[in-house]
């Protein structure tokens, strides 16, 4: 069975003929070549495949592609500006040692984005809660928390700049 769906992907309108059993991570990675979304377990246990659908962080390995019809999907590829400037979260993960092997990083950054979009002032406990579903084996999480906190500051500065 195939179905034609329409959705917004990183700001672009997309129409795509999909097989009904495809997961969103399959659609993104295998069909559309968006390899930034990683698959670490295929069971919703590690969070490496996290993307944002209508402002919610979801495990794309469990999310059926057919469910994104008429929805807004954000992946790691859509975060940086078109001129190549990194999103504040990407920049702060880079600057604060939030990335080692990097396999969990796209999912980690997407979960952090969903959090900060909703709660720009999230504190350490809220950050920990939001990232509880994203496993990292390299960093011990400390520099990831510091990265998210630094991103809050960066975002606040950017906003200050715009207002000023």
């Amino acid at each position, binding site marked *: 069975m195939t179905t034609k769906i329409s959705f917004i992907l990183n700001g672009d309108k997309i129409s795509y003929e999909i097989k009904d059993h495809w997961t969103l991570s399959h659609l993104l*990675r295998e069909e559309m070549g*968006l*390899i*930034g*979304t*990683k*698959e*670490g*377990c*295929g*069971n919703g*246990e*590690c969070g*490496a495949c996290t993307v944002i659908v209508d402002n919610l962080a979801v495990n794309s390995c469990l999310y059926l592609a057919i469910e994104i019809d008429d929805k807004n999907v954000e*992946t*790691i*590829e859509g*975060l*940086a500006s078109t001129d190549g400037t*990194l999103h504040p979260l*990407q*920049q702060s*993960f*880079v*600057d*604060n*040692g939030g*990335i*080692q*092997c*990097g*396999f*969990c*990083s*796209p999912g980690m*950054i997407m979960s952090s984005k969903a959090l900060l979009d909703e709660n720009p002032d999230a504190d350490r406990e809220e*950050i*920990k*809660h939001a*990232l*509880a*579903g*994203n*496993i*990292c*084996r*390299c*960093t*011990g*999480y*400390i*520099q*990831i*928390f510091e990265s998210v906190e630094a991103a809050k500051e960066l975002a606040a500065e950017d906003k200050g700049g715009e207002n000023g």
Partner: protein
Amino acid sequence: MDNLKSELSVVGKPIPKLDAAQKAMGRAEYIQDVKLPGMLYGKILYSKFANANIIKIDTSKAKALAGVHAVLTGEDVPKKMKMGFIKDNPPIKKGRVSSFRDEVAAVAAISPEIAKKALALIEIEYEELEGIFDPEKAMEKDAPLVHEHLKSNVLKMPWNIHYGDVDKAEKESAFVVEDRFTTTWVTHCCMGTSGAVALFDASDNLTIYSNTQIPSLAQKDFLEALKSMGLENKRARVIKPIIGGGFGSKLDTYAYEHIAILLAHKCKKPVKIMFDRVEEFNATSTRQPTVIYIKQGCDKNGKLTFRDMRMVLDNGAHTSWGATTPSVMLMPISSLYKVENVKYNAKCVYTNNTYSQAMRGYGNPQATFAIESSMDMLAEKCGMDRVEFRKINKNQSGDETPQGLKITSCGLEECIDAVKEELKFDNNNEKGVGTGIASLIHVGGGARIYGSDGCGAILKMDDYGKVDIFTGGSDMGQGLDNITAQIVAEELGLFAEDINVVHSDTDVCPWDVGAHASRSTFVAGNAALGAAKKVKKKIQEFASKILDAPAEALEFKDRNVFFPGDPEKTMPIGKLLRKAHFSPNGTMLMAENFYDPDNQNMGKELKGNMSMTYSFGAHGVKVKVDEETGKVEVLEYVAAHDVGRAINPLLLEGQVYGGVVMGLGYALTEEVVNQNGKNMNANFRDYKLFTAKD
């Protein structure tokens, strides 16, 4: 030494990981992301039993399935294709399986789904045999043999050492303690699962994309595999995509790589084998569990008199580097704290469990856990404060340990003091709250385990002052790319971003023994430094003529070469390189260097200075234990390390944080639950890694 005195511009700076932006944007390519034209997908069928004879295999239905290109069984594997350092393990088993992880067949098909379907169509008749899963029981006289032709389950390994006279020292000791400890199965849990893509060119030369920490040794294994296939004098090129975590898991070559090679050769197409998470848990090698017997004594002043340790290690059904972890266990056993009389015996025992492998620390954590637990007991027995007791027995600069390790510099006492200062050991009267301290020694200046402990580097400069450096060393997230770039940039007066570090392809990178034993910063770093020094000298000689200044007096900074005495005598390095290139009899600046440290192989006596330097540290922890449920909450954790000069403090901290959390998982939450050889928790729900909330 000059560098230590002068101010450094690049070394010592917290420069973010060079590939971090690429990774943050989702552009880094892992083995998961490698897709080649015409590529087929391979899948492996594993044994249904922990120990069984294979009576019959019928692959006809699988072969008949549309989309299937090849089906292999043990019959299709060349007789001499074997894995592991004692070559006891063919990539697909024939006639007999000795663990659930044993490969019995493999398929290549046009899609992963069809390959999976084909596996289900392979019919195998087994005769189940009694298995043995407890290494101590496997040592008993009438235990079933894992490999009958070997006549014993105990591997022939040389782990039997006696320095000094332990029996005499025991008799003369004022206090003696003795206990038995066990450690559990834990596994690497790299976030990126294992995989490989193999392909052959028209002349039967192999290219293999694989996750490996040992590109050069893997190349040697694959050349041997080709030879076993009748492809002698062919080439093997190993390409290493970005690695999604290593931790020792990628120190050997594995069945999936050899099977991908066999399938690719048979199908004349690229073949990819990619593990899913369940397969990653079930079919990769773990850190082996140990049973540890330890006896230690001290005199009435608290000075250690002897240490006597005996271990039984579960080797699993086949042999990989897990069987050599006692060589590293020997280091803390002989040399953590001063103790003259040391005995150590380790038996690696075949069982029908999964076979064991190196994992972060390579045996050191198991040995140190028992030593430090015993140190607490001995301190208590002789009535001394456990921190003071450790300080009485501390290692010091200038020591030579019974094993022959030469301690060049040692900050152990400072580390212990730092932990004590931070953790305030004595101020806890709260119910269920306790503290602990442990020290560590580890190699820090290479580790000569093979004939060579070396690493090569090739450095070339372009016309614009940029550097490409091809290193044998491997980055898997720990930051060797930065270390290399920062060292080269420092030496040549450049910025880290001017240095492109290539560490991914045996066709262009020179030899290295592998990313293990905390050796890469020291060995690959020195290889790069040597190459940079050679190029620097060439630039100095050329610039000397152009700037009319003595070559050796010329300095390099901020992309310029200059003569410190005269501000007029300066030139951008790029301009100088162009002049060198586009002059009559022009030249380009390149250099190669192979660095092999002056450390010693331990040899048959298991004695020798295996590393150029040793690193020390102390960790302290304050925990709260719920006395009803046993739940442990970590309240504070302090880690103090004597690291020398940190080349990149940001990445160094990341290594310590990551190591601490992996260690806490080992101690508190992680365990592969093994029931008669079967992994009962092959997923992240039941294998409990620390999460952000822990």
